């Protein structure tokens, strides 16, 4: 792999929630880098603090210690070149706005001219194939279309970095495959850095340049797997490659061990939480 300049640096990131006197460590010590235009996938056992990690990266949540550096600058608020795409598209879209106006939502307060905004809305909608539905309302669309709308809204904003929190997690298998390919297509044509959190190991291997494996909560990076599979990827050809299966099995085994260890740890020290 060609060495690309580092865009995002996560430095010993920790997040501890204090609730009614009890402390819960959601993220123990995350330390990794993301290169310019890299597609990074993050997998881990469920409840491993993936969402907390993304919210920390997005500047929506202040870390307890450590920091997120974007081009060397600490992230203390949502940076203009970064957008978080949520898993729950239904709750993230404005039900009172039409499809086109939902995309426009991301642009109304920007410096772009009205004409430029319109062009960006049209372009973003055409990328995700929603141009014909511009006057529909989100609740008139299927789940997959709603998630495409959320992605279009993020794209129109023109971020350098897309943070995606299990974006296809609640979609059926066919829709999901379809959206995975659309996302790769977008990423190929308009390169950007993507941090893609998922619980689906095959999805991570299929999409990413590199997969980070997190431990069970409190999360640390337990392994980093560079995915050396040819691009463009193909739902059938890529997933049939021996190397694909090897990556998948390797990560699967690793996560299983994490879950087992976490369970054993919980048994050994039930008071720790």
């Amino acid at each position, binding site marked *: 792999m060609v060495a690309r300049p580092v865009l995002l640096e996560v430095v010993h990131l920790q997040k501890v929630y204090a609730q009614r006197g009890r402390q819960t460590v959601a993220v123990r010590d995350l330390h990794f880098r993301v290169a310019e235009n890299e597609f990074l996938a993050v997998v881990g056992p469920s409840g491993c603090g993936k969402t907390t990690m993304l919210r920390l990266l997005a500047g*929506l949540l202040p870390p307890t210690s450590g920091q997120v550096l974007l081009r060397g600058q600490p992230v203390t608020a949502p940076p203009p070149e970064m957008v978080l795409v*949520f898993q729950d598209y239904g709750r993230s879209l404005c*039900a*009172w706005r039409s499809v086109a106006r939902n995309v426009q939502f991301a642009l*109304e307060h920007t410096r772009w001219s009205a004409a430029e905004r319109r062009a960006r809305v049209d372009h973003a909608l055409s990328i995700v194939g929603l141009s014909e539905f511009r006057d529909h309302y989100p*609740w*008139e669309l299927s789940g997959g279309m709603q998630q495409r709308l959320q992605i279009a809204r993020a794209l129109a904003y023109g971020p350098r970095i897309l943070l995606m929190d299990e974006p296809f997690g609640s979609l059926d298998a066919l829709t999901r495959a379809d959206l995975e390919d659309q996302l790769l297509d977008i990423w190929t044509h308009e390169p950007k850095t993507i941090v893609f959190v998922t619980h689906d190991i095959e999805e991570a291997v299929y999409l990413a340049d590199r997969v980070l494996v997190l431990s069970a909560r409190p999360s640390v990076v337990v392994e980093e797997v560079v995915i050396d599979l040819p691009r463009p990827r193909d739902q059938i050809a890529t997933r049939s490659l021996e190397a694909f299966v090897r990556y998948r099995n390797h990560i699967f085994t690793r996560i299983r061990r994490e879950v087992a260890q976490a369970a054993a740890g919980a048994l050994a020290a039930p008071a720790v939480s």
Partner: protein
Amino acid sequence: MRPTRPLGYALIGALLAGWEAAARAGAVNPAFLPPPSQIAGAWWALWASGQLAEHLAATLGSWAQGYALAAVLGVSLGLLMGLVPAIRAMLSTIVELLRPMPSVAIIPVAIVLFGLGDPMKRFVVAYAALWPILLNTLYGVLAVDPLLLDTARTFRLGAVRSALRVTLPAASPYIATGLRISTSIALILVITAELVASRSGLGYAVRAAEQASRVPEVYAGVLTIAVVGFLLNALFVALEGRVLAWHRGVTAREAV
């Protein structure tokens, strides 16, 4: 609801016919319960003289001005209380103390403060209509999905834009509920204020007719008030249906 409408109208027609017959046959004392035809005549006389229109305008004027003031104040204060915990903590005690008081009890205070004219009526209406709007706005703001607010933050909307473009529209179904409840409360209060202490408006007209023992006019006035209430509500429902069409769509979807 729809299919029962003709039946409902038929029943009203039958009741009126029965009333008319009973009054004419002397089964009820027409001095207290004049036949509908006589009431209609009194109504027409009031209308033709222009008095009814004048009273109607006075009532609707006070209603609209007080209601508008309550809407502006209620939505702004509700939004502020919902968004700023410090303001909520500060105002919620006052709200909890004032809200349970029956709003008609404010009328004597209003008379002391404003006398018997229109400003008194406006104040009474605004006071009573404020609470449902304020509280529903507050609940609506508190019920806004945090994910929607995170969405606004990731797109760097800023606090004011987020309040106006996310919180306010997301809370609008609640706000509409408050506004709808207050349309009828405002009417109740304006009529009450006119009944007990005023020289204009439909409530005053009814009281004046009653004191002068013009019984058919009493009924004509009450009937007019009923129709006004019905029309104001219908107007509001029509407006709400237009503005909140999206919300009906969402809830219809959720019900499936």
